[in-house]
Each structure stands twice: as C-alpha cells, then as structure tokens.
C-alpha cells in the first residue's frame, strides 16, 4: 500500500519549458516523499511566485501558491499553527533571496521545523530574464543590467550559515537522486533545513547546461559552524551535498499547558 513517487504527482501539466531544471526538483521531491512514506494529505508545499514557485500544484498534497517572496512566512504560519503537518517551502532565487531575503534570514534564525528548497537558476525566469541576486556579476544578458549586475553575487549557503540555519545542503537538478536524498535528510532534520538547488533555466541562461561539468561532491559533513564556514567559503559554489548539520532547539518551544487562567479575571473591579 505504500505509494510510489509517481503517486505524488498531481497530474497537472507543468508550465515549465522543456528541459527546465525545475522538473528534476519536482521529481526529487516526490521521490523523497515516497521514501519517507508521507501521507499526501498531511503534507503541504508552500511557495511564492516564479516558474519554480508553480511547483506546489504539481504535487499531490496540500499546497499554497502565495505572493512573491513570502513563501517562508506562509510556511511558518502554517507549521506553527499545525505542527503535525510536514511543511515544505519551495521557490526561486528571486523569490527567496531578492524580495524574500529578509524572511530567509529570519527563518534561518527562528528555526521552525520546515524544509526550504530554493531552486536557483541565477535568473528571473518567469519575468523573462532579468538578473537575480545570484547572477554572476558579469552576466551580460540580464534585461535590466546591460553591463552585467556589477554587484557581488548573493551566497545563499554563506548567508544561511551566518543566519543560524542548522541544516544546509546543496543539490543539483542534474542529479535528482542525489537531490531526493538531500530532501529526505532535510525532512528528517528537526528544525529549519535549507537546500540550495542549482536548477538550470534553459531558456534565459542556456549556458547553465555546462553546470554538469562544474558540480562536484563535497565530502564529509562539518559539525562545527566554524568548519562549515571555512568549507562554504573555500568552495566554488558548485559543491553538492550536506554542507552543515547541527540541530538546535526547534521553535516554538513547549511552554504552559493550555488552561488554568481566566483572562477575564484581570479586568474585574
């Protein structure tokens, strides 16, 4: 009676371009769901806006396709209110690191038990090819930045670490099985788990097919933040695997048991 990966597909046809990396991320998610034997109805996939953020509808689970940049607060509200659900936030680099950057910082700090999968294609796909925070400084094809962004690329894993994320991993859309494994581990992790996925945009950055040659495995999971910092710093941004793993207490913490106080009492004269 256990479900197969394909049973976790909703059957709705993705709007993605043929060859888009996001298909692989979808596959990896459904594989991980099957491996963890998640009940589809107890899972919720939450997103913002972007090509990547269309993903929830393609999974057979509950989902919320919110507004641009706010997947993490949406997911946080749901998880805090309904802790028994498996809550996964997904989205793109623009959604998560540009307009949503503040929520990323604070979600890493807050450590609510959700998984966050950021599909990074270093571009705004949905709005047709502007630079994103992760675009290389000298990428000349960004439609609003004719000379390149001339701005240092955003380093998602370094920021996650500096913000206090307890689980940081990097996956690649060209390796859906490896990615599925990372998602599995992220779901296993108690607390906020961040997966940075290199997910190519074949339409606006076709040169990303060359990523295949650049990605490489990282070996060994650093246990101290200092080690992780050194590792992430030294890496070229193409190292796959778990980059840091160190559980901290999850938020919210257990406190008062319900009941016991009548708040009306304090107003009575």
């Amino acid at each position, binding site marked *: 009676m256990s479900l197969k990966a394909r049973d976790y597909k909703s059957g*709705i046809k993705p709007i993605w371009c043929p060859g888009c990396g996001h298909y692989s991320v979808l596959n990896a998610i459904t594989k991980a769901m099957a491996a963890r034997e998640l009940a589809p*109805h107890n899972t919720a996939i939450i997103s913002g806006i972007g090509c990547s953020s269309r993903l929830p509808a393609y999974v*057979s689970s*509950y989902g*919320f396709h919110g507004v641009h940049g706010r997947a993490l607060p949406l997911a*946080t509200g749901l998880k805090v*209110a309904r802790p028994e*659900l498996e809550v996964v936030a997904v989205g793109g680099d623009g959604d998560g690191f540009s307009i949503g950057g503040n929520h990323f910082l604070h979600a890493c700090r807050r450590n609510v038990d959700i998984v966050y999968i950021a599909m990074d294609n270093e571009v705004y796909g949905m709005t047709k090819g502007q630079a994103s925070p992760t675009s290389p400084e000298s990428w000349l094809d960004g439609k609003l930045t004719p000379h390149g962004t001339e701005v240092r690329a955003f380093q998602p894993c370094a920021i996650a670490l500096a913000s206090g994320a307890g689980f940081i991993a990097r996956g690649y859309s060209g390796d859906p099985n490896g990615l599925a494994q990372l998602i599995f581990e992220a779901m296993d992790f108690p607390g906020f788990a961040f997966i940075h996925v290199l997910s190519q945009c074949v339409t606006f950055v076709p040169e990303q097919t060359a990523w295949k040659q650049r990605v490489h495995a990282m070996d060994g999971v650093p246990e101290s933040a200092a080690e992780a910092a050194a590792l992430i710093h030294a890496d070229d941004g193409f190292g796959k695997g778990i980059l840091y793993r160190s559980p901290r207490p999850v938020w919210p913490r257990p406190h008062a048991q319900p009941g016991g106080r009548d708040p009306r009492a304090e*107003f009575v*004269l």
Partner: protein
Amino acid sequence: MTTLTLAISGSGGAGAISTGELVLRLVAGSGGYGMLKKTFSPQIRGGESAAIVRLGSAPVATIPARIDLLIALDWQNFARFADEVPISADTLVLHSGSDDPPPGLTIDNLLAIDAAGIAAAADSGWLNMVLLGMLAKGLGNTCAAAEALLLARLEKHDEAAREAACRALRAGFAEPLPEPLAQLLAALPAPAPADSASPRWLASGNQMAALGALEAGVRFVAAYPITPASDLLEWLARHIEHYGGHLVQAEDELAAINMVIGAGFGGVPAMTATSGPGMALMSEAMGLAVASETAAVVVDVMRGGPSTGIPTKSEQSDLNLALYGLHGDAPHIVLAAQSIADCHFTTAWAMQLATRLQTLVIVLSDQSLGQSIQVFDAPGSEVPRAVVDHAVPAEPYLRYRDTASGVSPLALPGEPGHMYTADGLEHGENAIPSPRSRDHQRQLDKRLRKLTGFDFGERWADLTGQVEGRSVIICMGSVTAVALEARQSLATAGHEIAVLSLRLLAPLPVAQLGSLLESASRLLVVEHNHGAQLWHYLRSLLPNCTFDSLALPGPAAIQPRDIFAALEIADVA
C-alpha cells in the same frame, strides 16, 4: 450627569499616570465610573506624561476639553501638553512641586500644596501618593481602600518602597483639605451602590480587542510591534499560550500577515494587529487572503497620519486604506469598533466572519479607544466564535466551487482526498490557475456575492434615538461616545437627535441604511480625519442621501461643541 475631570501631569518618573490610574480604581471600587486617557511627550523616558481622568457616578466615555482640576506634580516642559490639558479660568490648579509654573501660563485659581514637604515629614519620597491620599479623602473613600489598591499596584516593589508609599498616602489622607479642593471633589455625587448582578470592568479597548480575539478562538497571532497596537499584542503574548495558541513576533509586517494567512490556510483562526504604516505594508498580502479565500483578521489601531504622522495620538484616517487599499477588485469586510467595551464584540465578530466567509476582515479601532481605560459594565459570556466547520465537500472536490452563497467548500490540510493548492493567481473552480475570462468573471462574482449576499444580522450598526424627522449623526469608533454625549446634552436642551454608529462598513448594508435614513431631516457624518473619508464613502454608495460633513483631524479629540456648531445649534451648555 455631573462629572469631574482631573489631569495629573509631571515629568518622567513623577508617577502622574499611575496616580491617575489609582484614583480611577478608587472611584470605581466604590461603585463609580470613569475613564482615563494617557498622554506622553515624544521622549521615551524622563519625558513628561499626563493622565486625564474623568470621574462620574454613571458611565463616562469621553474626555472633555475642560479640565476641572489640574495637579501638576512639577512644571517641567508642561507647555508640551498645552493643547491637551487646557487650563481655563474655571480650572483649579494644584501646584504641588517646588518649581514655578511656566511664565506664559495664565492661572486664575492656583493652590499650592507642599506635597514634597508632607511626604518628607512622613519619611517618604512619594509625593504623588500624598496627593492620592488627599484625593481619596476628598472623594469620600477610606484610607484603607486606597492603601489596598496601592499595595496591589506596587506588588513588584520591595517592602521598604511599599511602606514608604503607604506612609505618604496616609500622611496625605491625614492632611486637612484646602477648601476649594474639598468643594470641588465633594461636588461629585456618590455613586449608586454597586450592583453585583452586573459586575464592572476596568480595561482599555486594546485589552478588550485582545480578549475578544482569544474568546472567539484566535489561536495564532503574528505581528510586528507598532504604536498604538503593541499593547494589544503584548496582552495576547501573555495569554495565548494558555489556550494552546502561539504569538510570533515577526521580522516585519509583510511576514506577519503572510504568517497569519498560512495559519488560516491550516484552519486555525488567526489575526494580526497593527497601525496605519503596518497595514499599508500588508496591502499586497491582504489581497492574497481575498483571492485565495483564506480567513484573516487585521486589527488597525489608527493613529495620526499620513506616513509616520503622529504615532501616539488618535485619528480615523486609515478608513480609505481599509476600504480601498488593495489592488485589483478585492472585496473584503471592514468593521469598526464602537467603544472600548465593543472592541471585544467587534474583534470576535471579525474572526467569526473571516472564518465563515473565508476572507479578510479588517477591524478599525483607534488610539483613543485602544489606549484609554474605562470602567464599563462587563460583557456577557456570549461571544461570537470562529467557525471552521467545513461541510464535507462534494465529489469531485472543487475548492473554489461556484456555490449559491458564494462560499466554497473548504478542506483543511490533513484531510485525505481533498488536496488542492490555494492560489492568488486567478483560477478555475478546481483551483488550477486560469487566465480565462469566464473563470475570472465567475470567481469575481463569487467573491463579491459571498459578502453582499450574506445576512450580517442586526449588529451592522448601533442606533441611539429615533430617526424620523430628526438630525442623525453618522459615525464610527471613538467619535461614537462624543456623539452620544452630544445627543444627551441636546436632549437636555430640548433637541432630539439620533446617533447611528456604523459597525459594518464594508460591505455597507446600503439597502438597510438607505431605508433607515430616509425619514431623517438631516444627516451629519462626523469623523476624526481631515479628508472626510467616511462622508465620501457614504456619498459614493448612497447617492440619494444628502450628507453633511464634520471632519476634524487629530490629535485634538472632537468635542460635543463641534457637533453643536455643525448642527448650528447655539443654545446648548
């Protein structure tokens, strides 16, 4: 009704506010009524503050412009309050500090009391408690009653401090009252003996809104602090966990409203509270609640605007934003609380409506309702409760099904077989995104119909008085109490008017309102803002009515005399 209004002012640390609160509690404890308004200088500490307390033997809901008694604990920067604590020829000014009144100030009745000396003689530094003792005596209370309140108040202080305070209190109580003060205080009639069947409460509107939320079933709150909504949230932060709920201090208002929507999607009644600048930031996501049909409540405790404006003072100038501030066609519900006590009902009703109609409900309160404290008759135990009873959806399950009521079947995460993806993109009944005209039209119609077709019942407005052939004042929020007071004064002078206080602003019950107002002789919309926002709104929906407008911006409160003038009635006291 005879009431007594006293202001107690002083520099930071002088204890003006707590003295005022103790006076109010004292009077309330012996069956009286009253209200207290706090006012602060912009300085955070070491700045001046003043408590304006109005006492009466029957319920009191406004602070008048005239102060009967001013107790100046000191005069440092008193000028900053000049607007709010106007001294007239009738004001008795009790000068209790060692410094002199500022040069520009004209004081006709100045009474000096050496409170510091009396305190010192009692080996105490609590000069404000000397004054409390004197007031207690003058108002006919026992010293023991005052002492009990004082001790409760100083719970967290050490023994030595508490004793020193009590010594000062007793010394003040023992002091002979100067005649003018004795006379003034004695003029307040003794309250009727307290009726134990209807207990009375002392609370602020923010506390009442928070209680209403909790009692309606709110179990998730996310918010970002902002004056004057912070204390509403602070109250919830202390209580919600006892109900198994959570309050998240979000990184900003964008996060707060989206967290609320996330919780609402999960079926947990959820809300946030903020003020103008914060609600402006929530505008985009409020539209998401509307489009995705997710229950969410936003309480806006209005302050002076625009922009950062006057954060600590009251105004009703966020009405436009509340009614219209969403992009696209995004019908939603806007309620206004009518009184400090009504913050309780209206906030609870908001959560009930949000869950029943799966939409955004904005509750407008204002700083004056939110942060003044008042003695009022306790509300009953019946409170509107959030409704998350979602009918078992028909097969095939269509989340956004076009139903007769306009309310679509809602499945909650955790329910097998009804998975769907909520969406702010336009969608078909099946929740799949659709850019088609017919789907758009259908969902737009449905989202409007579920509001306009709903029976909101009797609580859409509170009417006081009879409409036929009379002038009717139309208002909301803290202006209501002023209008009701004006109505009473007018009645005493032989002019009968009616007051209609609108609780349901959107969707405005146009038909009911139109037929209610038909027979009135004159309609005056009174509101606390510069742009006559409510007046414009009513005009846009009731073109057959002729409305007059009285719109005055904050921070000064609207006064009954402003209403008399607008009604061109001269012969009222």
